[in-house]
């Protein structure tokens, strides 16, 4: 506790007196710590801690979810996915409310057993997430999968969406707290472009309140010195080059391409699809899945929250109509969604 007080005092003494600073985190777990530990209230008035695109569930395209729902309604299919995905609302309901053949898994390799035990069914793993879930899906493929197992991919890339953010003047990010575990995969070097090309101080942090505060201190030191550098305060887990084997496996099976971010649209090179030679595993190809036109949820500003342009409290539906029990938009569903986190802890 003393250490926390010490860091908070340091933040107050280092904070510039004359200007506002927007420090963005791009990780649901960071946002969780910030909100749950009340770090926002400990900050000087002119320092804003903004949640960014740290919630894969929140940006998973509606088209992919509706395709998953339609697959789960087929008699010959079992759809397996992470628990967070089951309740995400779309214009046709959620995977769970549709009542099809779905199954929750907490690790990709769990679908192997499902496929082996159900040889008469086609098992589709709906693989959603950023690098921390892409690598495990690549690991599953590397293990070798039975003929009746297919992958419906909705994988997105963190550094790429952050670059979109810094180019958007409306967002105006002054510094990044880079996500610890995504960094464990891609390496802290992946964020080098932000200080180098955009002059944005970037610090890789873990998930303890103390570690996050330390990252903010480092950022403020840099700003005070008029510098922009890449620093890493989560060295016990994150190496500069990241997990090489994980990177190799990801790009053995996937290639970078333009993908659809819910409410935001297609962004070039911001996601991953299975390579041509693995087309036989690709549920989009095997089941000939169409691109379904997205419909915005009336009133939901989740897409703006994800980009750091609005806060959950700016949404008229927040807490009144939209709650974790009855989520109207994707940001209220996942424990990594800003609306869900703010609902529970603030």
């Amino acid at each position, binding site marked *: 506790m003393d250490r926390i007080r010490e860091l908070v005092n340091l933040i107050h003494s280092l904070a510039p007196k004359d200007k506002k600073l927007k420090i963005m985190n791009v990780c649901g777990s960071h946002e969780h710590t910030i909100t749950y530990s009340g770090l926002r209230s400990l900050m000087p008035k002119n320092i804003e801690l903004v949640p960014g695109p740290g919630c894969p569930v929140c940006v998973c395209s509606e088209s992919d979810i509706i395709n998953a729902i339609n697959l789960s309604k087929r008699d010959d299919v079992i759809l397996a996915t992470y628990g967070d995905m089951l309740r995400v609302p779309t214009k046709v309901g959620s995977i769970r409310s549709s009542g099809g053949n779905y199954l929750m898994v907490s690790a990709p390799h769990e679908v192997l057993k499902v496929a082996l035990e159900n040889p008469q069914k086609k098992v589709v793993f709906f693989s959603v997430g950023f690098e921390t879930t892409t*690598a495990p899906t690549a690991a599953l493929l590397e293990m070798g999968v039975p003929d009746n197992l297919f992958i419906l991919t909705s994988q997105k890339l963190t550094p790429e969406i952050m670059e979109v953010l810094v180019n958007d003047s409306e967002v105006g990010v002054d510094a990044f707290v880079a996500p610890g*575990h995504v960094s464990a995969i891609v390496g802290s070097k992946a964020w080098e472009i932000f200080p180098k090309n955009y002059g944005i101080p970037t610090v890789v942090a873990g*998930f303890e309140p103390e570690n996050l505060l330390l990252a903010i201190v480092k950022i403020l030191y840099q700003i005070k010195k008029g510098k922009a550098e890449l620093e890493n305060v989560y060295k016990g*887990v994150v190496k500069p080059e990241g997990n090489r084997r994980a990177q190799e496996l990801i790009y053995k099976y996937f290639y970078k391409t333009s993908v659809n971010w819910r409410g935001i649209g297609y962004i070039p090179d911001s996601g991953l699809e299975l390579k041509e030679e693995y087309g036989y595993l690709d549920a989009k190809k095997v089941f000939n899945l169409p691109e379904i036109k997205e419909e915005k949820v009336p009133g939901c500003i989740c897409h703006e929250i994800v980009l750091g342009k609005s806060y959950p409290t700016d949404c008229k539906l927040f807490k009144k109509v939209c709650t974790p029990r009855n989520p109207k938009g994707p940001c209220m569903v996942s424990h990594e969604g800003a609306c869900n986190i703010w609902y529970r802890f603030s």
Partner: protein
Amino acid sequence: MCVGVPMKVVEINYPMALAEAKGVKRRISLMLLPEGEVKVGDYVMVHVGNAIEKIDQKEAEEIWKALEEVIEAMEGGS
């Protein structure tokens, strides 16, 4: 689904392993780390059932201490 949890490896049958955290055992995959890099007794950071990095015991314990609160809150939450 993005919460990383440190676990102790108690049995290895590469690429699979049995790992433990706070008395809970779970089958995890070591596929993302080269064969032989992780030994029984080592600590790893686990994401959706996959060890993504080897970490030392001190780091694991520190993260656990902080995570305990968070996980409790998450499970207690809706």
